[in-house]
């Protein structure tokens, strides 16, 4: 994604949910998009899936997928060629949106039946194979959602996302409604799938610790913008943007005695974001320039970039 912006039209004016976002998901890697609620994580992913609501004010930029420009494609081209076939998505809380009166197996293979007109028997074979891969017994194919536990329903959703063998899977808070012991099982499953299928993943979460359990690269979002990107080692151990640094410091740890701190203030209103760097009102290192000019993504290391004036000047 390069320079992608998505503004929503509201009565109060356009909401700059996604603003000039650049994001890259290399083949076979998992990229974690982390940030607080309302920072534009989910909006970023629906840009790729082209699942836009009606109240769009602005939708610009370039989204290159496997060499193809998605922004030039029509909605019906996206539907028939991209969505679910090449890019699939596990939505937040999706396990609660399974149709209660249709057998889960039939729901898993629905994309095959609709998009590829696959015959019932073949679809079932492929569905059962995907269910096995996600740790579900073959018998579950003929079960209804209410007969399955939360963890099993989430596996159904993941099997559904994989049914067309997509190249990229977007996972939006895939474990947020699950108990911690089941959450760990699902994270292990995702690790297996990533390796076995050479899948690219975009993992969206507010939980930076959970994201570190899967992701090779991080993109930290704040107020509609990506403020830092880099390898997991770089971002977690040597964060270059003050927001990343403070976000990491706010996580209570189980295995060390560092006392967590909070970030004073609250994320800004995206109808009327602060000028310059959007983090400057909360930033402990704020300088004069921060409220006047927006920083660029300055390179700070091999593949690591930070959207902060501390890491560069007007000349780059």
């Amino acid at each position, binding site marked *: 994604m390069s320079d992608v912006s998505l503004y929503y039209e509201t009565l109060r004016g356009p909401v700059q949910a996604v603003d000039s976002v650049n994001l890259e998901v290399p083949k076979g890697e998992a990229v974690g998009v982390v940030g*607080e609620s309302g920072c534009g994580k989910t909006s970023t992913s629906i840009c790729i899936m082209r699942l836009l609501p009606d109240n769009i004010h602005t939708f610009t930029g370039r989204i290159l997928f496997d060499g193809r420009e998605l922004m030039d494609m029509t909605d019906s081209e996206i539907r028939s060629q991209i969505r679910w076939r090449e890019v699939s998505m596990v939505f937040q809380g999706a396990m609660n949106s399974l149709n209660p009166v249709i057998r889960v197996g039939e729901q898993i293979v629905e994309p095959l039946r609709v998009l590829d007109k696959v015959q019932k028997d073949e679809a079932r074979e492929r569905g059962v194979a995907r269910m096995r891969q996600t740790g579900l017994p073959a018998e579950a194919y003929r079960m209804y959602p209410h007969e399955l536990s939360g963890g099993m329903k989430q596996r159904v959703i993941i099997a559904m996302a994989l049914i067309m063998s997509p190249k990229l899977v977007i996972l939006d808070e895939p474990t947020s409604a699950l108990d911690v012991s089941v959450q*760990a099982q699902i994270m292990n499953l995702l690790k297996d799938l990533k390796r076995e299928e050479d899948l690219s993943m975009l993992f969206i979460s507010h939980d930076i610790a959970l*994201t570190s359990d899967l992701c090779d690269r991080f993109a930290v979002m704040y107020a509609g913008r990506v403020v830092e990107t880099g390898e997991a*080692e770089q971002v977690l151990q040597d964060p270059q943007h003050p927001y990343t640094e403070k976000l990491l410091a706010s996580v209570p740890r189980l295995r060390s005695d560092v006392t967590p701190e909070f970030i004073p203030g609250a994320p800004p209103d995206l109808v009327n974001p602060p000028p310059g760097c959007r983090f400057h009102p909360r930033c402990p290192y704020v300088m004069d320039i921060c409220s006047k000019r927006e920083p660029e993504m300055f390179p700070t290391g091999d593949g690591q970039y930070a959207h902060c004036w501390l890491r560069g000047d007007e000349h780059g």
Partner: protein
Amino acid sequence: MNMADVMLIEDIRMHYQVRTGIFKTIPLRAVDGVTLAVPPGQTLGLVGESGSGKTSLGKLTLRLMEPTAGHLYFKGKEITHVPEGRLKWFRREAQMIFQDPFASLDPFMTVDQIVEEPLIIHRIQGRESKVHRALEAVRLTPVEEFINKYPHMLSGGQRQRVAIARTLILNPSYIVADEPVSMIDASSRVSVLQILSRLQKEYNLAFIYITHDVATARYFSDRLAVMYLGKIVEMAAADELISTPLHPYTAALIAAVPDPDPTNRLTKRRVIPGEPPSPINPPPGCRFHPRCPYAAKICRDEEPPLREVEPGRYAACHFSEKLQDDLLTLAHGHVDASSGRSAQPPTGASPKP
């Protein structure tokens, strides 16, 4: 346990009746024999997964539900079956903070009205200055800026602080906080917990902190009690319980929670199989045995009592002493003796420098 405890819970049980047919009901044992004490000025963290009975237990101690059996003592006085009319003093002393600050505040009331309401109900004078002090205590300052706002104009963290101000206004000595930060953004979570800690010291408040999140529980609690299917399986000082768990379930809960660490992705997390079974028909013997990697025959036959394994450390497991080393490895991986910090076992893949 002594009478100085703010809240003393003795073998409390809460059995719901679940209808399975027109005339048939079966009991669901949400809380099944729990004994606990909450001393003044301390926080007892109640940790467990959904359906473990932690919220039911919290509500029982506030007499929001009638227990099926057992006794509750508040500051030495029995409150178990006292009629509501004679509980008004207790209603002032004991308060609750709810999980969802979006649902627990009336959207048509201003901050002022929300915080003031308990004073009106209890017919207490000097309301204006009390509201001011409560809002200052939760750091919603300058007070004038917040007092006339409606809940929708506030962030999640600010809303939860309004809810805290409302519980404080009656000068309680005991507060049940049910997942007070789980719906708040990561960057403000700690600020709400810090406010609670500070208020605890200032007013000598006793807390029950109910959560599924062992990391915040460790940070905010003095003692932790881990619940599984209506029973306490382990109880100890928070740091001890996290650093050296004595029950396999505690160890598995800890193992499931990552710290932000780039090496996490290189190994698989050690997990226990399955999901918590239904409390309607809990497994015989130790309730955890079907998921326990160390289960033996005795675990299926005999329910282990909660016993003092080490001074001040209670666990309900037949093998707590034997399993100490295994549980440490399960929870934290290999522990580097020099730093005390845990590391994942090597798997061949090494992190980049």
